């Protein structure tokens, strides 16, 4: 059981940046007549943001980070660690966090590392950054979490393209012996690695010319072997059976008073499945904000995107008890409980 308690660390700020360009679900070419409306009704995603050519996840994360540290008044020399959490890496080598450190002119004393996680990324990221800061030797860390699914999915695949959006976020964390502990329940099931996978994308299956052929698998499902593919039914079955349970186990193990929780921040997978999770937990609707109608599923960025676009005022003013749950490729899933106190949350940055 990967239960984890991390003391001495607090979130002090969150920001997010998205492309200006919108992707309207009802105007996509992958759908047959009438399918777009059905998809919108079911998934809750009406539109999302689409990064132009040349703009990638790390660019949006960097924009979010620059604005955030300026607002917080952080000197760049005071940043001890930068962690980049994404499956949209700039290069196979070197790792993206180090590239960002260079571009942002952070000191060479800065610790940098990538955490290549998708939809469970924000929760897993908090466990990594929290663990680094908790000792008290490093005082300040930037956690950059984002994804540009548009760069790794096929525009002609109706099972994935319509509901995903691009975004980059930054979370600032500090060492603070007064901070309330963060509680984690972290899980993995690599036996289901094929549930969400881009087959020809690494060293296991190096990209060949054939991998670039666009293949029609079904009506509205055309992709090549470098694109991400998802076993929708497998992921659905997994989510229904494992995700509510993992949140319940976290609550039980750490004796969290559910009635006192201010917000349940679910990874914005799609409205249909998120509502199943919420109802299974019997968690009130008004405490479960959604940002997927206008930003879609932004992979690892969905939780900070919800914080920035839906509960900014509440996070800025006063304390909040928050449950988070991230789940996806791996398969990998995590539930986290944190308490925040008047954190800096910037308005959404659009580029």
């Amino acid at each position, binding site marked *: 059981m990967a239960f984890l308690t991390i003391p001495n660390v607090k979130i002090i700020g969150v920001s997010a940046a998205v492309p200006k360009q919108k992707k309207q679900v009802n105007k996509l070419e992958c759908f047959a007549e009438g399918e777009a409306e*059905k998809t919108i009704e*079911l998934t809750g995603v009406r539109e999302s943001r689409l990064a132009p050519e040349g703009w990638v996840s790390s660019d949006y994360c960097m924009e979010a980070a620059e604005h955030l540290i300026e607002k917080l008044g952080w000197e760049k020399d005071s940043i001890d660690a930068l962690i980049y959490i994404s499956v949209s890496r700039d290069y196979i080598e070197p790792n993206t966090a180090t590239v960002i450190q260079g571009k942002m002119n952070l000191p060479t004393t800065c610790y940098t590392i990538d955490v290549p996680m998708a939809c469970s990324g924000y929760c897993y990221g908090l466990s990594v950054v929290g663990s680094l800061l908790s000792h008290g030797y490093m005082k300040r860390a930037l956690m950059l979490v984002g994804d540009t699914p548009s760069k790794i999915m096929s525009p002609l695949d109706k099972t994935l393209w319509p509901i995903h959006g691009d975004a980059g976020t930054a979370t600032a964390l500090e060492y603070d012996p007064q901070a309330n502990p963060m509680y984690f329940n972290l899980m993995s099931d690599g036996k289901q690695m094929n549930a969400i996978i881009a087959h020809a994308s690494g060293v296991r299956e190096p990209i060949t010319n054939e991998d670039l052929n666009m293949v029609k698998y079904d009506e509205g499902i055309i992709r090549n072997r470098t694109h991400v593919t998802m*076993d*929708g*039914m*497998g992921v*659905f*079955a997994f989510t*229904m*059976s494992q995700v509510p349970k993992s949140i319940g186990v976290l609550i039980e193990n750490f004796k969290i008073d559910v009635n006192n929780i201010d917000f349940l921040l679910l990874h914005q997978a799609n409205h*249909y499945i998120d509502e*199943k999770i919420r109802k299974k937990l019997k968690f009130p609707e008004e405490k479960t904000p959604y940002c997927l109608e206008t930003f879609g599923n932004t992979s690892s960025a969905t939780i900070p995107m919800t914080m920035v676009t839906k509960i900014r005022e509440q996070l800025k003013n006063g304390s909040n008890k928050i449950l988070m749950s991230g789940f996806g490729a791996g398969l990998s899933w995590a539930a986290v409980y944190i308490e925040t106190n008047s954190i800096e949350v910037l308005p959404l940055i659009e580029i």
Partner: protein
Amino acid sequence: MDINEFLNHFTNLFDDTDASTLTPETNFRDLDEWSSLLALSTMSMIDEEYDVQLSAEQMRKANTINELYILTQAKI
């Protein structure tokens, strides 16, 4: 739980299919309205009504309502 109740829950998932034409032996994959979405709805209905989670593999292999019923009953 009995098969009639199960059948009733199942038929409620459909919008355009005449419920009176469905029997436990109906191969639901032959129905015009059947779709991958209805497969998810079926799994979800079984989860909500009976607190049973079918695997994707089980859902893929089943063809008749009675087969789903037996799978569900075995897990209660």
